[in-house]
């Protein structure tokens, strides 16, 4: 469970990204965080991984206040959370296999474990035959699927997706969200996806949290969004 309690985030330049947010996301939920650019969607996701810290308020992950965590415990928190980025953040000089293996590499997993789990993750995202390709040799959808495979390889409890469909054509974007839905259904992984793509949001009929100027405007089950 993830809980935001009266969370505000003000950047040093004075910009208010989030303003007194109260939000609770249960285990296994699929939530769209929607809103225009600058509404605070990315800040909200980055707070969950403690990439940034709030100006005030508390953030609980599995009932643990992540702001009270020592810097040593942050890597452990991040291992429970998979992240998919809008700009993919893949290493261009590494193959698909090597990119997907990074989260296992950092926990010093054995070679056998890496081989087995990377193969499973690639099969899950439908890239079983692209293991030896480099990111430059893939289509946009395949690149994003690679990023998803990397995000789910360590079987996280939570999957954060920050505008994962922003640079994709509608059909590919639909496929990527379908894949996230499959991960949510099959693995019971909590999925929190930030987007401003109303077609996608309205099609999948999930919980929708609408952010406007850093505040929660609406929070609806099977909500709609009109950008």
């Amino acid at each position, binding site marked *: 469970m993830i809980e935001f309690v009266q969370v505000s985030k003000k950047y040093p330049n004075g910009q208010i990204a989030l303003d007194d947010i109260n939000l609770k996301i249960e285990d296994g939920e699929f939530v769209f965080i929607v809103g225009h650019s600058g509404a605070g969607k990315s800040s909200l996701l980055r707070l969950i*991984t*403690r*990439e*940034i810290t709030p100006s005030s308020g508390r953030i609980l992950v599995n009932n643990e206040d992540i702001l009270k965590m020592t*810097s*040593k415990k942050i*890597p*452990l*928190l*991040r*291992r429970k959370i998979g*992240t998919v980025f809008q700009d993919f*953040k893949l*290493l261009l000089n590494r193959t698909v296999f090597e990119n997907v293996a*990074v*989260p296992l590499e*950092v*926990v*010093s997993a054995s070679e056998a474990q890496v081989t087995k789990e990377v193969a499973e993750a690639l099969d899950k995202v439908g890239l079983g035959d692209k293991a030896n390709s480099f990111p430059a040799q893939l289509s946009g959808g395949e690149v994003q699927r690679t990023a998803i495979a*990397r995000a789910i390889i*360590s079987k996280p409890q939570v999957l954060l997706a920050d505008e994962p469909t922003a640079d994709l054509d509608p059909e590919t974007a639909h496929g990527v969200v379908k894949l996230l839905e499959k991960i949510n259904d099959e693995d019971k992984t909590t999925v929190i996806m930030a987007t401003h793509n109303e077609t996608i949001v309205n099609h999948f009929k999930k919980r929708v949290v609408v952010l406007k100027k850093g505040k929660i405007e609406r929070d609806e089950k099977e909500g709609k969004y009109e950008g």
Partner: protein
Amino acid sequence: MKVKKTLRVLRRSPYQALAATLAMSLTFFIASIFVVLIVGGQVVLNYIEQRPQVIAFFKDQTTESQINETITNVKATNLTKDVKYITKEEALAIYRERNKDEPLLLESVTADFLPSSIDVSVKRAQDINQISQMLKENQSVERVITPENLVEQLVKWTKTVRAGGILFVSTLLSISFLIIIMVVGMRIAIRRDEISIMSLVGATKWYIAKPFFLEGALYGFIGASVATFLIYVILLFYSPNIQNFLGPIQIFPISPQFFVYLWIGEVAIASAVGIAGSAIALYRYLRIK
């Protein structure tokens, strides 16, 4: 795994690695030269200190008791290692032994021709002057021979080499240190994306920093090893010439143990410098959130 990764990183930008390694090699090569000069200088000093450094010849009419009194007085200074009395007869024996191949020089030389003397070895070379002065002031002593100037010069020379070496090597060490900070800093900049991704997927700071520490240590290890090998080869090659120059002062063959200690010492210092350089670069350039 980490070593493999470090070597892979080094292969990707070999010129930076080469620059850092060469700087370390040069620094420790120069350091090795100074170590050899200082140790060699000490061996020469030890040799001279072990020889009788002050020889005092007594006047013909000096009695045994006067000689014994002089010996007692010299010993009482507590500055001497050994005081050896050479009687006229022993002096003749030494003379005969030295000139045994030249019978002309032996003819008509008797013990009466040669003065009795004392050979004094001091504990520290710098005390020669004091002993020499004391013997010169002794009424029974005819003449005093000392290699005081040579020893003084050697002591001064060794001190200068030591001070100069420390200054010069410290400067080179600082340059190597800065080069390592620069090279490791550049590598961190090149790998910024990778570091950021690793941090986001749960890598610990130590996991991220370890290859950079290993890299710094590796520059030190390779640099110091190359330097020790070079100094070994050079000393091996020039040992006949150096030995000729030093004459009776036996320095060669240098014990392999000396090179092992030199290598261990230099590798330890160089690796520490490499690791410290990496640590500064990591602190300066790696801001993991």
